[in-house]
């Protein structure tokens, strides 16, 4: 078990560095296992966006931390792909340019993984293959409506925006 953990962790470490560099368009990042016993060690995350110092993620900005967590999630998926994945408003702290990078990566992964993405962000809505709106027109009662189904009509994002 300890051997399997070390191997898997090694693969995730490698992928994490690559995915981080893709999402941050440069820079560097590391997952560090701290401690003697592989089954007892703690895991630290250090990252260095372009032009900045290698530092614990606690010193990064809100948006940088969110993007780093997204990088870790995708790195784990590369080692052990999940058939589906649920994301709830993970794009909330990201600026427009970072949302775009996030979406580009999401699209690539979505060839092998189904994603259910809850969002308030117009760019993210636009990237969905299929879009559902949830409303509470009757007080306290949720109702689901299909906004778009793989047609990519331009009007769909505006309809969704009105719902949101």
């Amino acid at each position: 078990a300890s051997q399997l953990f070390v191997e898997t962790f090694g693969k995730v470490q490698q992928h994490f560095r690559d995915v981080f560099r893709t999402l941050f368009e440069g820079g560097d990042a590391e997952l560090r296992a701290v401690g003697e016993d592989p089954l007892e060690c703690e895991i630290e995350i250090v990252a260095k966006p372009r032009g900045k110092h290698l530092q614990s993620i606690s010193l990064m900005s809100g948006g940088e931390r969110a993007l780093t967590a997204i990088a870790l999630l995708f790195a784990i998926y590369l080692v052990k792909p999940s058939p589906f994945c649920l994301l709830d408003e993970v794009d909330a702290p990201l600026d427009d340019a970072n949302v775009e990078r996030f979406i580009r990566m999401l699209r690539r992964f979505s060839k092998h993984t189904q994603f259910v993405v809850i969002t308030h962000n117009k760019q993210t809505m636009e990237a969905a293959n299929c879009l559902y709106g949830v409303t509470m027109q009757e007080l306290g009662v949720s109702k689901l409506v299909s906004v778009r189904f793989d047609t990519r009509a331009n009007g769909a994002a505006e309809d969704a925006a009105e719902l949101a």
Partner: protein
Amino acid sequence: MFLHKLEIQGFKSFVERTEVGFGEGITGVVGPNGCGKTNVSDAIRWVMGEQSAHQLRGDSMEDVIFSGSPGRKPLGLAEVHLTFRNDRGILPTEFSEVTVSRRVFRSLRDIRDLFFDTGMGSHAYSVIERQMVDHVLSDNSGHRRFLFEEAS
């Protein structure tokens, strides 16, 4: 494709039977604050075996049953069914379609409580995610008192 469809009935704010079909790639879910989007993801986690009522923002598992609205009485049962297409043989079975289901019935005592409206029980202050929100409503009520004393 793996995830095929989700059926929700009586689960949190989804009092009516609701069906969500999943296609290839990215399925987006949008809507105003409080309309039920996270409740959809709660339903998926619940039917996939989430054991912690706290993770579903409740006190007990029965908190996921529709608890009523101005126009509707509370329900006594919540159920969720999640259907998978198994064409890629991801699941270790020869069936081509697999449905996972989960139900919870309201206990008799809970129904009595509903009628006597005991209010919100022992929910204490909660952790709120946003940074400023942490300052205003932190998990540590000493902090919140400090805010009031500052205002005194």
